[in-house]
């Protein structure tokens, strides 16, 4: 019982904190990837 309570607590607090960090990184780097995708599609179109 104690094991499950501890596991769920670690998962909740650790998972949420990690996700918050990941979200910030993906937001920034993802914007660069969107720009790169549109640039590549435009080039393909011209080619």
């Amino acid at each position: 019982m104690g094991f499950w309570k501890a596991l769920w607590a670690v998962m909740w607090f650790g998972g949420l904190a990690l996700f918050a960090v990941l979200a910030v990184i993906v937001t920034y780097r993802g914007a660069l990837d969107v720009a790169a995708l549109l640039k590549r599609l435009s080039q393909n179109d011209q080619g």
Partner: protein
Amino acid sequence: MIGHTNFSTADWAIVVGFLVISTGLGMWAWRYMRNMEAYVVAGRAVRPYLGVASIIASEMGLVTVMYSAEKGYTTGFAAFYLALSAAVASLVVGLTGFIIVPLRARGVMTIPEFYEQRFGRDVRVCGGLILAFSGILNMGMFLKADSLFVTSVMGMLSGEQLKLAMTVMLGLVLTYTLLGGMISVLITDYMQFVIMSIALVAVSVFLMAQFSWGQLVSTVEAQKGLAAIDPLAPGGMGPVYMIWMAFLGLIGACVWQTSVMRAASAEDTRTVRITFSWGSLGFLIRFMVPYFWGICAFAYLLQRPDLLGEGVPDQSLRAMPVALANLLPMGAIGVLTAGMLAAAMSTYNTYLHTWSAVLTQDLVAPLAHRELGSTQRIWIARGIMLLIGVFLLVWGLWYPLGQHLWDYMAVTGAIYFTGAFAVLTAGLYWKRASRVGAYAAFACGFLNIISLTPVADALGIQRESGMLYSAIVGLSCAALAGVAMVAGSLLFPDRRSDASQEVA
């Protein structure tokens, strides 16, 4: 009929603003769509971080939030096990590249396309038909569950308001997905990822300030017993259901077409691995956060049972939105609703796009008497998408659910993936896999249909626990499909020229 809610004019402004920008952005992407490859897999030009944003946004739909919150509300903390198994499975798939990397390396756009490469055109058509049938059935409850969220948050409790909400949501998503294809999906997914992430983290932090962790654990334990904490406790999930859920986690990551579509769109196999490894955190969050919200709703509604409304149907599904609409302050509900609409729309566009692409590429095109051009295929895909939209509206209003939404989702998905898992694994990693084996595996997987409540009732099958019944049927069908694949391949091998095809 209007229930109590803190939803205000400011919240309306936030939601309408989000809808206008999101739909406009999706339609703007139309200008980049020139051929079928751009339409289906965005010209295979997706880099890792956009891939991660897209997989998290599309796999975390509002329907996921709804069925997970219902699971948290009814099952308590034990439901966290499902989140853990999904995250571990996605991480394993990302690290090993199991199924997804060889599929990407073969350059296929859809799973049935691989069936044709490996087994022949007839297997592609059969596999594509089962995949689309299962996928569209699986999607059948999305619209209703999502509209239940929106109407509950806004305090609208009548059936007419629910129907109106369903129609408006569907119309908006159809508009931009029809026009822009995968490019629209990716760009709107990115924007929706950003808004959804803010809403998920902010609302969770707000709820943690309202309910302490210790208070929630003791309330759930006192009201629901040990099984709400320990999944192995008597009366809890039990080992069979837990194994079934672990299997579902694996399938969700590597066999489900919407995930595979992400792999197909990736720039290279390295991007595929990164997307799925980092995406595992998304798989954890997409279940765990709504479980927590459902548990908070349970604790809150114990004190305010009147808020659910006497005699209003779907109480366990409505619990989370009703609780949040009364807990969150004005403005924050608007951000939450915009975030959840973002989650809903990113999932709709992905699923609508996926199933229409599968039907066009794997059913209509192979059966057509002549080669179809890119423009023709795009118009066929759009027509199919429109028909799927009409089906969603009708099915969402008519189908009697009769089981937890999560279990409905698992069963409808299992109709396809239990057979497909055997066919894909054997097709990719075993030289002797044959088309007879593939047909036998598909047939065994299709047997999962007896887990749907109306089908089980029609067959007169007695079952004490719906959860355990669907787990036993699902695992049995998966094992049967594996045996059928091996036996069919050994007993009826393909002719030498077919069998000599390369395996990954």
